[in-house]
């Protein structure tokens, strides 16, 4: 029989295949394992792709390589102990996670932070959002070969981290939020410094825009790849810049405002096609809007410390503590302490400005803790084991707009000093669930920009 007929015969009977191996036209798909340790996967994820030549036929996404037990660890300590764990969720915008958790516990307690504190939270959240988008776009640009853009954006991120360090004391993992307030007030000169830095960041963004937005190679790689339709995106539970790039205008800051976002005027950018290029444009514009919010907030933030009659002496905090331990606490009600620079912003005269007036949740200022018996009792009742912040039994779900989408915290309390259950609804979890759907049909090399625009943050995805 003819060769073709023999081959057809051979396919049905596999023992004959070997005779015709030199003429074998049988085609099989290749399985390629991308990750978990892979340069283009910023974050650890494993994508097992089935390839037909260069085209992805199916992709299975395997996560969980950074599971660190956030939810279980939160159950092992008091409410404020969850702050460091919450920082490390979305570690490029840690302030948003902090404040999201604080919002949930404050709702559970039925208290609200003071106005200045809410403005501070808005300012720091937006600065965090800018650093997140800078990292995302910088890293995905680097993976496409635009290394310069990465360096420029990280340079801008360094300036913002210096700002964050001036306020919170740390660059990245800041533990700044507290239930009922924040750790410390904004330092002096913050407004001017921020304005200058934001101007510089704007210049950097303009440079990067000139390098990327109308760049032929960038457009070729990003436009038309990683497309997802709006209906599918909603069904997958996707939120944030991803959903907005599909054309759906949903932003938690506008839909269900929290803190003082309802007083801020800003736009929510959307794009049309739901491809990688649209997501890039949405993120670039969101950075500009975030800067706008920061400037508005700085202009309208309510005035600083309430002036307490500071006719008393001014003394270094360490001396005050030593005197208190020795029992010499006369005149402590009017003393004004000068703390160490790392503890600035948390003195007594600023205490009522940045903390909610809720004695069941907020620690007293240190001048009271060391200065009078009510302060000491108050401190004891909040810190010692068996005591602490005890919200009444209940549950609450509080959502904030994270850099990747809706970041929700579901906290269940059983009346004790430890949270009974803390669940964080991670925005990039749902996006990663849709990733295999988005990769199918595209080429292998399109996996890089698509995955880059997902902005998968391992700490948030795997918790």
């Amino acid at each position, binding site marked *: 029989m003819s060769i073709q007929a023999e081959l057809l015969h051979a396919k049905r009977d596999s023992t004959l295949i070997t005779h015709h191996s030199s003429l074998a036209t049988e085609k099989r798909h290749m399985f390629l394992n991308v990750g978990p340790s892979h340069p283009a996967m910023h974050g*650890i994820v494993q994508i097992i792709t089935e390839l037909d030549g260069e085209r992805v036929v199916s992709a299975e996404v395997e996560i969980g390589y950074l599971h660190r037990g956030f939810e279980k660890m939160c159950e092992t300590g008091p409410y404020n102990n969850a702050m460091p764990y919450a920082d490390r969720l979305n570690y490029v915008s840690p302030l948003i996670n902090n404040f999201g958790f604080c919002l949930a516990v404050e709702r559970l307690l039925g208290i609200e932070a003071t106005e200045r504190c809410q403005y501070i939270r808005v300012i720091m959240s937006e600065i965090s959002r800018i650093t997140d988008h800078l990292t995302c776009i910088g890293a995905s640009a680097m993976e496409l070969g635009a290394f310069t853009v990465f360096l420029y954006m990280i340079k801008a991120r360094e300036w913002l981290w210096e700002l964050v360090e001036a306020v919170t004391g740390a660059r990245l*993992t800041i533990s700044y939020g507290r239930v009922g307030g924040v750790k410390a007030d904004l330092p002096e000169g913050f407004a001017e410094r921020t304005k200058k830095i934001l101007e510089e960041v704007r210049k950097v963004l303009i440079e990067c825009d000139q390098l990327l937005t109308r760049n032929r190679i960038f457009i070729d790689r990003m436009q038309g790849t990683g497309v997802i339709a709006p209906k599918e995106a909603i069904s997958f539970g996707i939120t944030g810049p991803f959903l907005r790039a599909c054309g759906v205008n949903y932003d938690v800051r506008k839909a269900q405002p929290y803190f003082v976002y309802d007083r801020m005027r800003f736009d929510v950018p959307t794009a049309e096609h739901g491809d990688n290029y649209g997501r890039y444009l949405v993120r670039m514009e969101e950075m500009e809007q975030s800067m706008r919010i920061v400037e508005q907030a700085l202009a309208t933030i309510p005035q600083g410390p309430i002036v307490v009659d500071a006719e008393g002496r001014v003394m270094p905090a360490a001396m005050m503590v030593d005197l208190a331990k020795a029992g010499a606490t006369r005149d402590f009600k009017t003393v004004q302490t000068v703390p160490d620079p790392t503890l600035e912003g948390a003195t007594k005269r600023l205490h009522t400005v940045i903390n909610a007036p809720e004695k069941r949740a907020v620690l007293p200022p240190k001048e009271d803790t060391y200065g009078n018996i009510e302060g000491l009792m108050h401190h004891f009742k909040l810190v010692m084991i068996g005591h602490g912040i005890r919200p009444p039994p209940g549950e609450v779900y509080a959502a904030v707009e994270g850099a990747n989408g809706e970041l929700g915290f579901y906290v269940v309390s059983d009346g004790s000093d430890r949270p009974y259950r803390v669940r964080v609804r991670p925005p990039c979890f749902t996006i990663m669930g849709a990733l295999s759907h988005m990769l199918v049909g595209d080429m292998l090399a399109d996996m890089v920009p698509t995955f880059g625009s997902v902005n998968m943050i391992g700490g948030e995805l795997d918790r």
Partner: protein
Amino acid sequence: MGALKEGTRVMGKGTSDAINLSKLDWMTTRVDAALGWARKFSIFQYPFVTACCGMEYMATACSHYDVDRFGAGFPRFSPRQADVLFVVGTISHKLAPILKRVYEQMMEPKWVVAFGVCTCTGGFYDNYATVMGIDTIVPVDVYIPGCPPRPENVLDGLMKLQEKIQHGIKATLPQHAFGRPTEFQQPHRAEEHL
């Protein structure tokens, strides 16, 4: 000239106590000192980046804190081509076999840097999912603690690594990693003492 360490003699025309670079013809040194010098200034790192420390790793690698000054600026994303394994960020038990495999795929000479306190001792993630220190799996040369370590810390650690490379000191798996009880250990809870 400070880069050439002990055992180096420089000779040339009109050599005196002062070394005149323009008059050098040739110099002698020990092979391992020269090799150490060459290796420490051309570190091909494999950044095994997992978590938040990766952000500080990026910051160290970029313009502000520039690790390229040390010759360590170009990461090699294949273990076959890398000589220093930077383990950056928490290692979970799911990822541990892969870390071990990557380490075994690297060729000698190789060094391991534990970047961040999660890789040194597990950090504050004392739970079911985290490896309490990667030195139970791979031998570690330099421990850079910090959560995350500041870029200055990282550069300090890198310089210590360079000293080790210069002198060819290798790490071995610490003996205390073996022979531990197989039961899980209860954390030392403060309320037990109330």
